[in-house]
């Protein structure tokens, strides 16, 4: 007797992002096994990320290197300037990159950290004398050459710098990994006079020993990240009197460039994944929640194999926190608008982007550094090149893993994807051999009333959806459904996938 065709509707598939931690069989279909070059869009759907548009037209000074760091300098006079580093140079500009490296100043590494403070932008990198730029001088100079500056030997050559509470704070010096230095109040070049000072926290580490990696200021706290522990001081407005507020053992920060502020939280990458300080009003402790619980192993694996930079950025406009393993060219995109049941951010993965640095400008634009110079996160091509959007569901058993499932039809509902070629894939029983059904989405250009009615395009109501019905083949106890598409100028969101299957006999 013929079996009744069952319809299993995967509504808003993968809107919880990637989950590689839980057993595929037990997973919620709302997770994805793979979500490459994807984001969670404003409707909670998995969608293709935006591409980047290269702004730079002259990258001579950059050569074949990549932009390793970007910072927007703004002062009270409204002057702005984009600084970046790469090719062992201090660079300014976005279209034509200009070498701003001071004369007779040799740079052999590009691990600079730039902070703006009191109408100046400061450049810090371990073992290098810090540099400074302001609009008045219009040139990047050594910090020790500024009027009122401490001697070059007295200025910490630190790898980490933080502008907070009216001072510059720095740490992570080659021969001193446990001391935080702070400058005089509002005077970033004075490190020996005024109210400048330092604190050696070698006796404060909860685990007995650690090394400072990063600094952060949050909720009137000075947060000192070690590799394996965190120390928070309160009252940093008066650093001579600041007191220890809390310590966290076993959780540290991997790299200073993974620390990002979200307004209500501080995100950072630890050895066990992405972490954050949750802000509490009543309690004075610092609860730490794991935000990458769904991809912990992946994160750890990437950490262990990373040999280059870590870069991150938080974009409230896009609603994500990007964490890039530059050496592996992998970027994890954490959607910060909400968390899953286990408290983790929804996460997708961007691969082979070539992104090497980020900065969010004051106006919300997201600038991306690549080997092409400086790009803007916009559009749906990577510098006019398509990129592959991938979605794969976890293994689906449709509630009964003991019966055979025979896929009959797959009905994806896509939003956007103008003229995109879409590959719908499926496979059974954890096998890597996928069956593929290809189709091309038609013209999805919207025609708004009064703009292009009855002329160029068909009058539409907004983003267009496309629903297809594709025949599937094969059978198995578990099914993985995937969708891939080359994003080439148009957005693509996966609204749902309706799977029509026959439930077979018991195995």
């Amino acid at each position: 007797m013929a079996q009744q065709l069952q319809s299993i509707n995967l509504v808003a598939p993968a809107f919880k992002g990637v989950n590689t931690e839980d057993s595929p069989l037990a997973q919620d279909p709302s997770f994805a096994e793979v979500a490459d070059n994807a984001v969670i869009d404003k409707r909670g759907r998995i969608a293709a990320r935006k591409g980047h548009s290269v702004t730079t037209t002259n990258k001579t000074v950059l050569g074949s290197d990549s932009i390793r760091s970007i910072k927007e300098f703004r002062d009270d006079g409204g002057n702005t300037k984009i600084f970046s580093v790469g090719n062992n140079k201090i660079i300014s500009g976005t279209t034509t990159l200009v070498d701003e490296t001071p004369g007779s100043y040799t740079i052999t590494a590009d691990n600079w950290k730039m902070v703006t403070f009191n109408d100046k932008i400061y450049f810090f990198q371990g073992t290098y004398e810090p540099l400074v730029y302001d609009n008045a001088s219009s040139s990047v100079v050594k910090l020790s050459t500024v009027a009122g500056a401490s001697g070059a030997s007295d200025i910490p050559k630190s790898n980490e710098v933080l502008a907070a509470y009216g001072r510059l704070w720095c740490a992570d010096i080659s021969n001193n990994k446990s001391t935080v230095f702070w400058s005089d109040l509002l005077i970033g070049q004075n490190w020996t006079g005024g109210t400048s000072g330092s604190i050696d926290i070698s006796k404060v580490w909860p685990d007995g020993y650690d090394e400072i990696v990063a600094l952060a200021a949050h909720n009137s706290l000075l947060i000192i990240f070690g590799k394996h522990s965190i120390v928070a001081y309160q009252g940093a407005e008066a650093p001579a009197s600041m007191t220890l507020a809390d310590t966290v053992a076993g959780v540290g920060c991997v790299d200073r460039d993974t620390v990002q502020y979200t307004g209500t939280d501080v995100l950072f990458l630890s050895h066990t994944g992405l972490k954050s300080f949750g802000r509490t009003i009543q309690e004075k402790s610092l609860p730490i929640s794991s935000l990458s619980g769904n991809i912990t192993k992946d994160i750890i694996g990437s950490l262990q194999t990373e040999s280059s930079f870590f870069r991150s950025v938080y974009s409230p406009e896009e609603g994500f926190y990007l964490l890039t393993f530059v050496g592996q060219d992998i970027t994890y995109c954490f959607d910060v608008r909400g968390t899953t049941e286990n408290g983790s951010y929804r996460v997708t993965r961007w691969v082979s982007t070539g992104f090497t640095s980020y900065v969010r400008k004051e106006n919300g634009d997201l600038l991306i550094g690549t080997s092409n110079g400086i790009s803007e996160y916009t559009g749906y091509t990577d510098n006019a090149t398509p990129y592959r959007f991938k979605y794969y569901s976890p293994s689906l058993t449709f509630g009964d893993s003991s019966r055979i499932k025979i896929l009959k039809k797959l009905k994806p509902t896509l939003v956007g994807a103008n003229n995109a070629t879409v590959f719908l894939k499926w496979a059974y029983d954890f096998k890597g051999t996928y069956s593929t059904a290809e189709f091309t989405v038609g013209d999805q250009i919207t025609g708004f009333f009064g703009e292009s009615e009855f002329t160029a395009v068909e009058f539409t109501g907004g983003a267009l959806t496309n629903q297809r019905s594709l025949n599937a083949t094969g059978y198995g106890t578990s099914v993985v459904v995937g969708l891939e598409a080359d994003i080439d100028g148009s957005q693509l969101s996966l609204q749902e996938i309706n799977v029509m299957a026959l439930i077979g006999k018991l195995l």
Partner: protein
Amino acid sequence: MDDEYNIGTPSDVLGAGATGSNPIMDASNALSGGGNGFFDFLGGLADYATQPGVLLPGILGGLLTGEAYGRLSDIGKQARTGAEALAEQQLQQTQFRPFTVTTATGAGFGTRVDPITGEVKTTMGLSPQEQAMQSQLLGGAGGFFTGAMQDPAIREQELYGQIRAATEADERMERLGLEERLAAQGRLGVRTAQFGGTPEQLAMERAQQQAMAQARLGAAQQARQEQVQQSQLGGQFLGMGYVPQQQLLAATQPSQQLAALQQQAQLQGAGLFGEASMSGLESQLIAEQARANLLGQMGTGLLSGAFTPQQTSPTESLVGDMVRQFGGLFN
């Protein structure tokens, strides 16, 4: 008028020989060229002088006058001798008489006159108890003065060490307490350009340094106060050391007053004695002087009579006068 000394009336005495020839006149006449010139004059004078009425009164007058002269000289000698004897006697009478005083506590005060130099010397002696006390007090004064003359820096350092020893324990506890607090606050490693370490550390260091400075200042003040105190004590001890002596001297005051009264009475008695003695001497001198004057007057009268012409028998007159004169002299 009665002739107490039987001298006779002066007119008689002086007028003896006035009658008859006048030798003087005769001599004058001889010198002026009457007779044999100068030798005549001398011959006349000798004749005149050898007359009984002239020779005897003249001799007696001369003798009496010489006797008066000699007596006046003896009167002066006797007055001087008497005055000297009186002075010697008064000197002995007014000479200082040594005395001694012995107090109830056994101290003694004595005076004596050096027999050789005549200087008045005093001696004072304390009782053994007083001497012991005096030695103790003076020795103590010496000790205090020695202490007062020492370098105050030495005592200052000693006092400072004592103060520091008393406060170091508390300071160490405060330091440890602060260290614990700072450790609990994670601030042990704070180093600031403004405070050096933490403000609390600076405050504590400042307080401790201030306390140390105050301790040093206090020690210096204390050392100097002690120096002054020792000086004062030395002075007091020194003064007290002389108290027995002062008390001895005070105890001699009544005796000295008595001695002064005695001396005064002695002087007064000697004065009265001298005055009385001098009165007697004066009276005797006056009487002797009067007798000498009388003899002189008699001698003068006899001489005058001898060279004055007498109407009566010169021998009779002369003998009568001599009898009267001598009778008066030896009455």
